[in-house]
């Protein structure tokens, strides 16, 4: 029997942009167990919600993560709007969809670069991040921000994106989509990439379901689950189906994200075509505070995110709880790592697209 050794992986590691720690129990080069631990960047944002006015908390919610910041702000607003029974203007919902899908594209392209970096494909890494800049330019033109946008508010949007801007965005999308093909083709079909991803980090469908996997991690194991199908922000009026792969391995998880990039381009075009005129902001009555409880569920680039709200009729929430997709994907990750080679650990970790800032909140 091979001797067992424990190799610490992280919190500082070349493939980890954020700190997470795994104790890898090895028999020779084979991982027999992975024990995770977190808490290096825990910020207690849930506790902060009990001290901030619920309007101000939008900006804190947006800062849960620097990559999916817009959808965090949107999710917070969606939950508060449900508690306050607000019916926000359709134009605001459409703009939220457009910005949310742009965020998804830039997140997936960022992930593609990080994965390429993990297996040493430096040119693909740099090319991915160059294309991501084009999406960030669109976001900057639309919102004024590249990382934190501050455009979502309870009741709608803080600023409108006028029709000329939307048309310019539409014109640029075709070119950016063509650029994306240059990245996604080698990511899925290059023989050296496939050797690192096909059959690596298996997560069978039943296991994924039992372990509560979400997002592309679940969909790559054949689970057709996408929180956008719930219908928030008018997604139920758009034509799309969850992207599903059945390979259950790292390649399938890559394929789901790649296909979702193109799906997001399509959703943006649908949303722009269906954006009506009118206001983007609902004026709130002063002194109206959230009361009751509600769990808002949205689809982040990494999967389903849950925001639980409990209001007691004061400007401060009694409880604000966020369950982020990476938190849900920690248990599936532990399972994927069992039985893999040590050299495959970085690639497998990246195929869940870990976002530790989200996880730590």
């Amino acid at each position, binding site marked *: 029997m091979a001797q067992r050794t424990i190799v610490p992986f992280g919190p500082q590691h070349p493939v980890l942009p954020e700190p997470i720690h795994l104790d890898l129990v090895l028999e020779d080069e084979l991982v027999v167990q992975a024990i995770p*631990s*977190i808490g290096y960047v825990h910020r207690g944002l849930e506790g902060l919600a009990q001290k901030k006015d619920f309007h101000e908390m939008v900006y804190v919610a947006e800062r849960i993560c620097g990559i999916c910041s817009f959808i965090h702000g949107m999710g917070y607003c969606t939950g508060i709007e449900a508690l306050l029974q607000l019916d926000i203007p359709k134009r605001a919902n459409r703009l939220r969809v457009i910005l949310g899908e742009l965020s998804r594209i830039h997140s997936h392209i960022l992930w593609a670069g990080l994965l390429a970096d993990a297996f040493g494909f430096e040119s693909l890494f740099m090319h991915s991040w160059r294309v991501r800049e084009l999406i960030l330019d669109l976001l900057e033109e639309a919102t004024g921000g590249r990382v934190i946008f501050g455009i979502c508010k309870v009741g709608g949007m803080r600023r409108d994106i006028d029709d000329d801007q939307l048309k310019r965005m539409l014109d640029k999308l075709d070119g950016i989509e063509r650029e994306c093909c240059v990245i996604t083709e080698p990511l899925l079909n290059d023989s050296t990439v496939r050797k690192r991803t096909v059959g690596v980090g298996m997560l069978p469908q039943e296991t994924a379901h*039992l*372990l509560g996997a979400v997002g592309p991690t679940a969909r790559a194991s054949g689970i057709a689950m996408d929180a956008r199908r719930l219908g928030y922000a008018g997604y139920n009026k758009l034509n799309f189906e969850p992207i599903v792969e059945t390979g259950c391995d790292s390649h399938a998880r890559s394929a789901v994200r790649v296909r979702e990039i193109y799906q997001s381009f399509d959703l943006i075009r649908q949303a722009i075509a269906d954006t009506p005129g009118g206001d983007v902001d609902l004026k709130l009555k002063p002194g109206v505070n959230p009361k009751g409880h509600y*769990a808002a569920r949205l689809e982040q680039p990494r999967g389903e995110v*849950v925001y*639980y709200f409990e209001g007691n009729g004061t400007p401060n929430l009694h409880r604000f*709880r966020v*369950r982020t997709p990476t938190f849900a994907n920690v248990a599936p990750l532990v399972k994927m790592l069992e039985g893999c080679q040590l050299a495959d650990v970085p690639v497998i970790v990246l195929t869940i697209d870990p976002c530790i800032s989200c996880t730590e909140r």
Partner: protein
Amino acid sequence: MAQFIEEQEIIAIAREELPARAAQLAKEGWRIVHVACIVQGDQLELLYAFDRAYKLVNYRVLVPKSDPVVPSISGVYLAAFAYENELQDLFGMRVDGLVLDFKGQFYRKRHQAPFNPPTCAPAEPAAPAPAAGN
């Protein structure tokens, strides 16, 4: 556009029922979504959320702060280990039967149970100082 509000059911159960209920839900194909803890006065309210076909059901368990113990469901849903360690780390609960128990060290933190700090007893008034010169 009609306002979007997802229907969400809340069912109150006793803490002793948790493992059996979890086993039943797993058998019926429900996925664990999250476990939330809310401090309600002298009680801790736990919400165990499960999803099946986009339907969300919450099981509410009330636990007195004086006896903050719940049985683990991680034997049925391994994914629950992360949520249950969070309950131990941030709320000072004890989860019996955890499959992967970090014993309060899942999160690296300075304070014990930062989201549920122990209530401080009011300080007793200081005894008057004896008068000088007597």
